[in-house]
């Protein structure tokens, strides 16, 4: 990413940040920048420190040394304003008796009147956003009664309702089916195009490769970052995951196999009868009219 593509001041900047606890350092001397309007995915194995990195930005992870700035202001250990956060949906208490509208209203806390009830203005802002996210008709429904994709959109709405500059999502594609993953990442792409900077963590490398213009391979340090087309190589991913990772390309199609001993597994498929099929998939996608998404990705 050249400096001419972005304004000179990063939205988030880590300068030699060490994070964790005295008995367990999660990452050390980390320097990283995220620029306004960037749409970046943070990938790495479990325990790599991805969630800790997000929480360091959010001011809830202990920072032992270094500086984190948000729009030029130091935010070490404090919660930066203008940030929307979507937690992993697995951490949500779905039995809690709250409606969709009540959850989204929580996102207005900083700007709210603090009255126990919602004002007319707050209610119309929430309803408008829910309508935009296509879940307006569920406003009065308890959150457990929605599908996985709808639940994810409720928490996305809570994060967006106060018009944040930065949206942070922890594993937004986990716990939902492939179709919903696709829809969520597509929606995030639309939000990003409206000017919101997005940083998310995910384990789904193929979804990242498909939808995100920028990826950060992270395992206690930044192993590599850039366009997934360039960064997702067997070498980089194997270093990131400390395990053999195979990346297959055919034309503009890329697929990462993240199963154990991926290289061996795929050698069998590619050289066997299935390899013809794989070629067929590539050609068939062109006739399915999905090209625009790839172009869309490169516009960022």
């Amino acid at each position: 990413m050249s400096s001419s593509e972005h304004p000179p001041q990063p939205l988030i900047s880590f300068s030699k940040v060490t994070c964790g606890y005295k008995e367990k350092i999660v990452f050390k001397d980390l320097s990283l920048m995220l620029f306004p309007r960037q749409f970046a995915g943070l990938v790495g194995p479990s325990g790599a420190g991805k969630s800790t990195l997000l929480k360091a930005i959010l001011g809830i992870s202990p920072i032992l040394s270094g500086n984190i700035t948000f729009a030029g202001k130091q935010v070490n250990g404090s919660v930066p304003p203008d940030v929307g956060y979507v937690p992993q949906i697995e951490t949500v208490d779905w039995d809690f008796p709250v409606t969709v509208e009540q959850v989204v209203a929580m996102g207005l806390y900083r700007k709210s009147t603090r009255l126990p009830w919602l004002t007319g203005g707050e209610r119309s802002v929430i309803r408008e956003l829910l309508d935009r996210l296509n879940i307006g008709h569920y406003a009065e429904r308890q959150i457990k009664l929605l599908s996985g994709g709808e639940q994810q959109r409720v928490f996305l709405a809570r994060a967006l309702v106060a018009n944040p500059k930065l949206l942070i999502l922890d594993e937004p594609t986990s716990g939902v089916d492939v179709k919903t993953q696709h829809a969520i990442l597509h929606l995030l792409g639309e939000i990003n195009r409206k000017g919101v900077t997005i940083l998310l963590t995910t384990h789904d490398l193929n979804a990242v490769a498909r939808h995100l213009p920028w990826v950060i391979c992270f395992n206690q340090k930044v192993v590599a970052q850039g366009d997934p087309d360039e960064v997702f190589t067997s070498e980089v991913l194997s270093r990131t995951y400390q395990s053999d990772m195979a990346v297959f390309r055919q034309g503009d199609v890329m697929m990462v196999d993240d199963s154990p001993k991926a290289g061996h597994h795929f050698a069998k498929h590619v050289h066997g009868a299935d390899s013809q099929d794989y070629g067929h998939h590539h050609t068939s996608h062109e006739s399915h009219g999905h090209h625009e998404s790839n172009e869309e990705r490169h516009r960022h």
Partner: protein
Amino acid sequence: MNFITDPLKYEFFVHGIMAASLVGGICALIGVYIVLRRMSYIGHGLSHAVFGGAVVSTVMQWNFYIGAGTWGFLSVLLINAVARKKKVGADAAIGVITTASFAVGVAIISRYRKFTKSFEATLFGNILGVTTEDLWIIAIVVLVSALLIFVFYRQFLFTTFDAEVARIYGVPVDWVERLFSLILASVIIVSMQVMGVTMIAAGIIMPAVTARVLTDNFNKMVFLSVLLGILGGTLGMYTSFYFDVSSGATIVLVAAGFFVIAYLYQMMREKFWAFKQARDVPVLKEETPTHIHLHDESHSGFYHVHEHSHEKSEDQE
């Protein structure tokens, strides 16, 4: 009608019913937060911890409310601090601190046997002993607690739902937790004389759980819980008067009765809806056409599996 008005001729009953409905309502209100945090055991434990403080206050000739209140508040703070240690869970922290505190009270009573009778009232409740001064203190604590919960309604809701995310969105979670601890300790102190140490936990939990069974909406749960708490306190007092049994026990038994009714109602409602759905909705036989089969695909680097047909669709034709 005499059945309702007759007991009101007695001043002790009027005091008692006012205290019971006030205490029932406020216990039910804080019970909503306790139940939703899955910390039901804290009400039980804290009332026992406060008992230790009550005994120490009496021996040291401190004001009961200030002495026992401070003791209770410090107990909650200590529980929160110990529970944060990774090797000690919240349940174990409550168990250790509150039982130790209760044991302090028991040890002192066994040393100074002359206090036994008044502490029996503290353990099992003595509504007949509610004085005008007690009533004023109960009313003030109830009013201030309810007002604080009203003013900090959004903060309490967000913190109870997800404390970590609430912090990210700017809620001063630590202060909210401390304020809640203070409210909880105060409510338990003023409830001791009405409910008794052994029954307070039920007064806190039962109306909230009953309300939870009946609704999926937080605001409605708060309203229903308070209503059931006040109703339980009032009906419990009449039951206590007519059957001549401990008021704490009757209040809890009425609340338990409400819970059983709500539970059965909800169970029947679910069965009715299941039956109605089974009757009204025809069973759809999903037959996949033979020419459609699962097919793994790769579109622009996005690998997935979907249904695939080699036959032309009507549109294409």
